């Protein structure tokens, strides 16, 4: 199961994910991402404090959004990475591609600077 909450703060969209982001739930996140891109929202923060599990399809969904917003001069930041997802990010060296922050505020702040 995956629950997500979408919030707008200025021109930054914050996705708070809760539960598992895997082959079963990634398609619904992808749909959400499509609607995000359709409305030209290109600055995204993923708040992963509530994310319990991520697999390669889940990483794929985030990477896909990352690649697409970057071609539109936007970016994806990660906030409150912890637990198994943090292990996966480390294993895949994704910390080299994503800026990772302890709090949502800091992640949002980075878009302003």
């Amino acid at each position, binding site marked *: 199961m995956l629950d997500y909450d979408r919030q707008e703060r200025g021109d930054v969209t914050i996705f708070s994910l809760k539960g598992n982001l895997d*082959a079963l739930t990634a*398609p*619904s996140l*992808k*749909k959400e991402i*499509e609607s995000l*891109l*359709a409305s030209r929202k290109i600055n995204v923060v993923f708040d992963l404090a509530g994310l319990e599990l991520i697999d*390669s*399809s889940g*990483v*794929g*969904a985030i*990477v*896909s959004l*990352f*690649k*697409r917003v970057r071609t539109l001069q936007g970016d994806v930041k990660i906030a409150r990475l912890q637990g198994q997802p943090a292990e996966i990010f480390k*294993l*895949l*060296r*994704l910390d*080299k*591609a994503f800026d990772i922050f302890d709090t949502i505020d800091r992640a949002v702040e980075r878009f302003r600077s």
Partner: protein
Amino acid sequence: MRELQGPNAGAVYELRDLCVLGRALDCQVHIRDLTVSRRHARISKVDGRYVVEDLGSGNGTYVNDKAVTRHFLSHRDVIRVCSARFEFQEHEQRPDAVTYVGDPAAMAQIVKRVDAAQPLFRQDAAALTTVTDPKAVIAMAERLETIYAVSEAISSILDLDELLPEIVNRVFAVFPKAERVLLMLTGDDGHLVPKVVKRRSETDDAEVKVSQTILHEVTTQRNAVLSHDAMEDQRFKGGRSVANFGIRAMMAAPLVWRTEVLGVLYLDSFGIAAFTQADLSLLTGIAGQSAGAVGNARLHEELLKRQRLERDLHLAERIQQSFLPRKIPKVRGYSFSARYDPAYEVGGDFYDFIRLPDDRLGLVVADVSGKGVSAALYMARLTRDLRYFALAESDPARVLGWMNRAVIEFGQDDMFVTLLYAVLDAHGRRLHFANAGHMPPVVRRRDEGDVLVLDQVSGLPLGVLPDAEYEADSFELIPGDSVMLYTDGLVEAMSPSREMYGMARLVQAMASGPSDAALLLERALTSCRDHVGDAPQFDDTTVVCVGLEHPDRPPDAAITAREEPPRTGEIDLNQGAYRSRRPRPRTRS
């Protein structure tokens, strides 16, 4: 967009924010025609309007028979790509032009309700025999006849893309006063998704605003409702309808099928008096028939999808088996072993051995995100690319840099690849390697008895960042040493109590293991299997092992010619990769 002429004539494509037309299988509009370029043209949305662009195709893209490079589309424009012609339909298919508005109760006033479970038309049918007023009888009979006609027209359509517009067309015809008809379906997440909008007026391009209060009542109470709605509407600002300024009538009915609300039919019009109680009853009946048709079409679609999935998995398995190496290389002084254990689904692991000049041997272990045919086909392509690059460039880090760009250029956004590429210099007894987000190699030093995890150099997985850079590392092999390359399926294998096998156990198994590659590999897999027991596994496991033989003898490192792996004869996707002649390295500009 509807395909008027071409391999899929009659097909209706829903345009999203980006849609590529071409011969490549992954195009949203796939056109099976050799004169069509792989990525021929694309349709994207710019400021709320659709624009078609030619992607440098061989034979050009035409709109209304004029060649275009970039063209804003209008309703009923005909796009031609070689022999295929498509009609762009803006008015009938603008599911995005809908907003749900939360409204104060005073704004949307529900004036009539019909319980969709007990609609009036059912009562009509029962009453027909007792009512004596001929006018009432005729009205009832007509209503039933209309519902029957709609039912007959839609009940045999099994394709949702065809069915939904047809339902809307029918409703449009039945209610001549309806200005706009909207069909929404309940999505996987329980939200209503607008599917088809049809408008009476050609010039009407205002957003359809639907009251959430009403939708809530329709979907939760399963009532069909007739409402007068005083929401501000930009269409009235031009004073087009002064008498009814700002007032609309609308009807909405749920599509109830079995116990589920599959969607909502919504229509609106100008003026309070546009719809009557009888209309509401009629709509309820049509919505009921539509629900049955949509439910059937969905079942049919699911069945097709399941069949396709099964076929896909079977095909993927055959593709994958066809390009994994069948033979283990032979190099004097070394032992090699490799194992690929698929999980119950075909996954994205692969490994390869690449013969290189100067007594070198390339070793590859990789994991492609995603499963099924597309991942399997993609692996076939990756092995081919990697073979070209490996022959052209000896530095593993630069090979990964090229591979990364190849994956990026492939353009599948959600696909990425973790890959470990190592080059064994058999004569110099060194292993050079570079890592793209993959599990680190593990070396067992026989003489010192330690096990080293070589995780100092690792870069991003392939396909994440266009300018990702990789670093190479190397280490000397001492006789008796063994190296293990593997995918995450090995260390992440779960025990029945959901505990991972983990690096620590792997290191332990290797520390006490034999140095022969095949024996060591078997040791690691047995140790993992013991941990896992009979817990179901969801990920493939791939392990490649290299051992430098002991006791020391002068390494005569001539790599003996590897036998060409047998082909399956059925699938020949990576022809060339297995040719014994050396492929010419691809030069990149």
